[in-house]
């Protein structure tokens, strides 16, 4: 096999594709083959072993987990180089002609989508059907939210940074603890989303969320920042705690909902698969991953610590 093979996160996919394309245009190596399929599936393939018919790089929209490292090791994939390429912002957007969902706080989203919420100091099964039921500032429109399915890395961020935060902010978390739940159980209970059809899991991609919104103009959807930026003709974005999502506000940490993006290199393949190391270095080069590079232009929040990453990659495999 002559070309580098990459698989994994659908969030990282566009960036990896952009880099692969540029790599093919600028180097004599063949263009790497970049597959999608999700972070977990990518890492699973990555950990299948070493050798020509396994992939060289796994993209992930989350850090590799302990269990995965162990599984890798079991199959002989021991040396893994972790490369963080930047951050991805997660935004809440709705149809441009839909209700005026302009500003949310985690509490609002928790009140709208959580399974059990606090109403008049009582913990009850979520009774809200309209946004205005719990926040008079929000439009008097039916609640319907399209959130990433459990197969997406994005879901984890959504739960941690929005739902869990909202749970605490509304006091529901405290109420649960008071009701005698252990902390772990309370956390779990916080993260549960309502199951009466007003919170819809999207197992597919953001385009599916977009299509759902066009079928349900009242809905709000969870998107990646880059996706939103590409679809400003049909979508409008809401602020979170008053902060407008943008690469700038995310890189400063002002906008709360974001997550790091990674790729993992199989060190054993460096020196064996032609172009692997070159590709990895090229990926994190300033010309690409820097704040003015094409990745940032597409929507990647570039990593302030890029220089360290470059050094890690340069040192890999030797």
């Amino acid at each position: 096999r002559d070309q580098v093979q990459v698989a994994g996160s659908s969030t990282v996919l566009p960036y990896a594709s952009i880099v692969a394309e540029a790599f093919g245009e600028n180097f004599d190596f063949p263009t790497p083959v970049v597959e999608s399929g999700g972070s977990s599936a990518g890492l699973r393939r990555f950990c299948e072993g070493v050798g020509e018919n396994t992939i060289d790089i796994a993209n992930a929209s989350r850090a590799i987990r302990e269990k995965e490292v162990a599984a890798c090791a079991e199959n002989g994939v021991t040396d893994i180089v972790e490369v963080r390429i930047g951050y991805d912002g997660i935004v809440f957007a709705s149809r441009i002609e839909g209700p005026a969902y302009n500003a949310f706080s985690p509490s609002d989203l928790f009140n709208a989508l959580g399974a059990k919420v606090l109403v008049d100091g009582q913990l009850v099964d979520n009774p809200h059907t309209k946004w205005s039921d719990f926040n008079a500032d929000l439009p008097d429109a039916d609640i319907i939210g399209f959130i990433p399915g459990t197969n997406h890395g994005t879901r984890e961020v959504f739960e941690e940074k929005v739902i869990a935060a909202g749970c605490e902010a509304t006091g529901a978390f405290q109420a649960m603890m008071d009701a005698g739940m252990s902390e772990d159980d309370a956390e779990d209970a916080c993260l549960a989303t309502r199951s009466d059809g007003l919170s819809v899991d999207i197992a597919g991609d953001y385009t599916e969320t977009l299509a759902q919104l066009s079928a349900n103009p009242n809905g709000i959807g969870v998107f990646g920042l880059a996706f939103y930026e590409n679809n400003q003709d049909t979508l409008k974005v809401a602020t979170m705690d008053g902060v407008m999502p943008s690469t700038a506000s995310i890189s400063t940490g002002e906008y709360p909902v974001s997550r790091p993006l990674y790729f993992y290199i199989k060190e054993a393949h460096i020196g064996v698969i032609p172009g692997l190391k070159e590709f990895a270095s090229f990926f994190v080069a300033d010309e690409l991953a820097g704040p003015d590079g094409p990745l940032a232009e597409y929507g990647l929040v570039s990593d302030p610590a890029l220089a360290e990453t470059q050094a890690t990659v340069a040192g890999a495999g030797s």
Partner: protein
Amino acid sequence: MPVIWILTLILVFSIIGFFLGRARAMTSAGGDMRSLHSLPSYYGYNSALFLAVPSLILLGLWLILQPIYIESRISSLLPETAISEDTTRSLVMSDVRRVAEGLDVAVDQGAMTADEARNIRTEFVDVRERLGSVGVALGSEVDAPILNAAQQYRELSSTMNIVMTVLVLALGAAGLTFSYVRTDKDFRARNVVESVIKGLLILASTIAILTTVGIVFSMLFETRNFFTQYNWVEFFFGTVWDPSFSGRGGLSEFGLIPLLWGTLYISFIALSVAVPIGLFAAIYMSEYASPRMRSFAKPVIEVLAGIPTIVYGLFALITVGPFLRDFIAEPMGLGSSSSSVMTAGLVMGIMLIPFVSSLSDDIINAVPQAMRDGSFGLGATHSETIRQVVIPAALPGIVGAILLATSRAIGETMIVVLGAGAAAKLDLNPFEAMTTVTVKIVSQLTGDTDFSSPETLVAFALGLTLFVMTLGLNVLALYIVRKYREQYE
């Protein structure tokens, strides 16, 4: 000699063998083929087969075994030092292979002489650069043991290649000679050729069996793993499907019932659309339509089977879903979900129409005209004839077509995801979102879960369950067909 050449040679020799065999048979019969046991061409095929089959089998086996043998030989020659601690033997071997191939390419392109390729040393030549110049990219510098191994690799493969060529051709010649000697006017050439063909047919039918075995085995172990981690009673009888995912921890619930219900419900609606429409279309095309209309309508409807399911999915999501919600579900107070069982079922039904219509059309068309005549002659109308004579006679085929459509309905994911949503619910209301087993197989398999966690493994359990269930369905169908089959003539 390249394999393609060997294949060509075998082919050419087989053709020659064919004529030789035939000629010998004719001579042995004194030029009168009437005194031959079989038609002359069977003697030809006999010779050709005896030449081709053994040599092809040998070739195939050799091609599979040669790399394994060479790898093990070369790899045993590689010094331990050549394998650094962070790599493995197999990776080094792939490097060796690549260098060897690079040398081949270089020789082919004239960038190196054969001698040079055999004797170059890393000390004197930058092999990576030399190979890079002929377009073979290497991952790293080539060190001496690897180059050495690569050169031996080339050597060994070229000798093995020569041996293989000679052996394969010799075996072919032996086969030809054997069959040639046996060829005689009383030799039962047809029987031999036909048993070879029968052997091939049996071989072909084992593929389906092997596929099943493969599928069952690829799911069996994982399913067993799943059931060591999750209680089977809760799986089969649980009514809640709520897998957690690794990011969150917490307990998952894997109740099969809601998924099963969704599968049955959606398939049922899809079939209630596809079967009547497909069957009536088939009947119209084969019984009423003019040949011209039929030759137009049939392929046109078949296009429905070729439209990618994503198109149907988007059609369901964007057009059918909101339509049903706004004009049926909401006015009737049946909910306000745009994704619903009904949406997915209707759209899937459309996709399945050609499965029912085209296959049934062929079968109905094959019912002998005498059957229809018999019925017409008794004063039956065309529709009575169709319902009571033609359809029963075509029943096995029609059931087959419906089964095929059912199978597609059960196996479909895209339309369900976009049309019916992904929520596992147990509800009678057809305007509610539900989902199917297959969708969950896909989403658990591609999901953000650990490989050995029950969240992933449940996909295999679901797959196996589905497999067993559809098996039951098929047994039932076979039984029904057997019971009601009406064999004409």
